[in-house]
């Protein structure tokens, strides 16, 4: 018997989960598959390097700021240029506004519904159901603060949704005192809203239902995240820190070295690769210290760090990690809330920095070469790697996105949740939603994760009972 959930609802892009049941109707195995194909890496070849922050931002309508910034940083590296202090501050300010509104989207419109509403009927499993349970006021606050953060992105990035301001060596646009004051006011309000959000979710975190959700899946993986010199979480810049499942530092590396530390495993049933830690190795879909599978994203960032770079978020971090590394997949939500507070506080701190209204916002690039740019997208480590020729034209582009980094773990989480909730063949809408909810914890962006160009290889497997009955192939 085969159960399909397709398309996965309330996620960016489209995906497919396939669950295979044994003779007794229990789950034997489960997979996540991504049918959507896009061809950005090949499309990028032959382009002018300076176009990359604009082009790559079009990979995804949900996280364009992350691609924009990863591309700009890869070009800083490729042109061997260090942006001036004001440019770095402006980039980081924009970036924290993006983290804030992206987390807000996931917590209140997408995955967070699973946490706040629980097993409600399908028609109420949305933000309307949220209003019904928590009242109109919270809805108004969500809309207002998402807009605040988006307006900050527009002010700094020069455009709604798709920013254009980050360029090799800095930014194309600074801010004056009026804009600074406006951002400060908005950031202050965002801090209060983030605190309210934590309070709302914490009520659920104390419930029996939360323990059931935490029990759906727990993976003892490695964790990866960007950290500053104090080993505190930083979304825009820093070194990459990897910790073992027990929380011990496994590696702390310069972002430019990241590709020496990971390799990608390929499975024939999906276009999306499975990155793993090269030194540990690929041992299949298993967790533990001997398996090179790692996780990225909010939970991984907090696990890989020793703290947060703002005061209130630091207090929350200490409470969250009081017993050490947290492995439960649903804890992604708690980590996301702490990060939302951190991003708001960080915006407030950055916009009050003396140099934020400075006019030295760009350093001139040097001769082009090869460059790697790494940022923390809302959903985890995002890597852009470009090889440029002497004329500044892209010869090779490789993008490793957050959802790809989490691919192996996502598949394991889906399988674990399915095994927990599907018994003796009993499957209904609420049970399937629970399986999906394990997937949604990661806030995956499937459109970003799959990028291939040319004739699309297609394999269709037709199952009869548990056995492969027929396989159709095209362009394979």
């Amino acid at each position, binding site marked *: 018997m085969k159960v399909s959930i397709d398309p996965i609802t309330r996620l960016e892009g489209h995906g497919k989960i396939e669950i295979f049941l044994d003779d007794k109707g229990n789950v034997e195995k489960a997979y996540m598959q991504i049918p*959507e194909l896009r061809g950005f890496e090949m499309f990028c070849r032959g382009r002018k390097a300076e176009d990359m922050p604009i082009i790559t931002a079009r990979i995804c309508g949900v996280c364009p700021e992350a691609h924009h910034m990863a591309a700009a940083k890869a070009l800083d590296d490729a042109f061997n240029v260090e942006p001036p202090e004001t440019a770095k501050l402006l980039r980081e300010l924009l970036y924290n506004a993006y983290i804030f509104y992206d987390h807000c989207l996931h917590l209140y419109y997408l995955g967070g519904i699973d946490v706040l509403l629980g097993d409600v009927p399908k028609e109420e499993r949305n933000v309307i159901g949220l209003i019904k349970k928590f009242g109109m006021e919270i809805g108004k606050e969500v809309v207002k603060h998402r807009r605040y953060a988006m307006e900050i992105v527009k002010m700094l990035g020069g455009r*709604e949704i798709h920013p254009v301001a980050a360029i090799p060596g800095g930014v194309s646009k600074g801010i004056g005192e009026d804009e600074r004051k406006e951002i400060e006011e908005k950031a202050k309000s965002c801090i209060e809203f983030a605190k309210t959000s934590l309070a709302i979710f914490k009520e659920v975190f104390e419930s029996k239902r939360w323990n059931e959700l935490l029990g759906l899946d727990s993976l003892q993986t490695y964790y990866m995240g960007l950290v500053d010199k104090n080993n505190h979480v930083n979304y825009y810049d820093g070194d990459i820190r990897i910790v073992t499942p027990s929380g011990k530092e496994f590696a702390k590396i310069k972002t430019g070295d990241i590709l020496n530390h990971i390799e990608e495993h390929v499975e024939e049933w999906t276009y999306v690769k499975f990155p793993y830690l090269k030194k540990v190795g690929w041992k299949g879909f298993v967790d533990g210290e001997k398996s090179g599978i790692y996780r990225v994203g909010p939970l991984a960032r907090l696990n890989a760090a020793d703290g947060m770079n703002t005061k209130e978020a630091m207090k929350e971090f200490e409470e969250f990690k009081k017993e050490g590394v947290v492995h439960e997949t649903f804890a992604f939500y708690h980590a996301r809330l702490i990060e939302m507070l951190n991003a708001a506080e960080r915006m407030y701190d950055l916009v009050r920095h003396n140099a934020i209204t400075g006019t030295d916002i760009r350093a001139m690039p040097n001769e082009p070469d090869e460059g790697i740019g790494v940022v923390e997208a809302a959903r985890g480590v995002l890597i852009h790697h470009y090889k440029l020729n002497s004329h500044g034209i892209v010869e090779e582009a490789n993008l490793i996105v957050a959802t790809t980094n989490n691919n192996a773990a996502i598949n394991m989480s889906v399988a674990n949740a399915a095994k927990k909730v599907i018994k003796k063949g009993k499957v209904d809408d609420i049970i399937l939603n629970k399986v999906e909810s394990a997937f949604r914890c990661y806030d995956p962006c499937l459109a970003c994760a799959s990028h291939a160009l040319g004739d699309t290889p297609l394999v269709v497997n037709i199952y009869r009972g548990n056995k492969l009955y027929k396989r159709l192939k095209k362009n394979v």
Partner: protein
Amino acid sequence: MYSVIVGVGNPILGDDAVGLEVAKRLHGKINADVKFAEAGGLELAEMIAEYEFAIIIDAVKGRKGVVEIDVEEYEESVANHDIAFPSAYRILSRYIRMPKVRVVGIGIDGMEVKEGLSEEIKKLVPVAVEKVKEIMEEENELVAV
């Protein structure tokens, strides 16, 4: 009337960019703000919030030529949407003033990663421009009544 015209599409997905191209042609030639949305769903709904009237122009599959689409049936062509536009519109309507919306769809066969429109779709751009102008005139008449 405080109006906005929004072209929706992805400029590197071939004919999907037709909505952006139509909006570009209308920029400065119509009594409305003109915006370019390379996203759909919630972000598109947020872009038109607090206007009185909005026209969305987007590529659509399964249709031929330039057609007006019922808002409830509108599914954005950009692949990365989070919440479908009709749902996002309904959610935001509860909190902030949302405009009356009309949607102009331009039928395309499919999307591929490339820049530029196909010759067939290029021919539909002036047709869509006229359709938008026609709708604007209709709405202004209604306002006058």
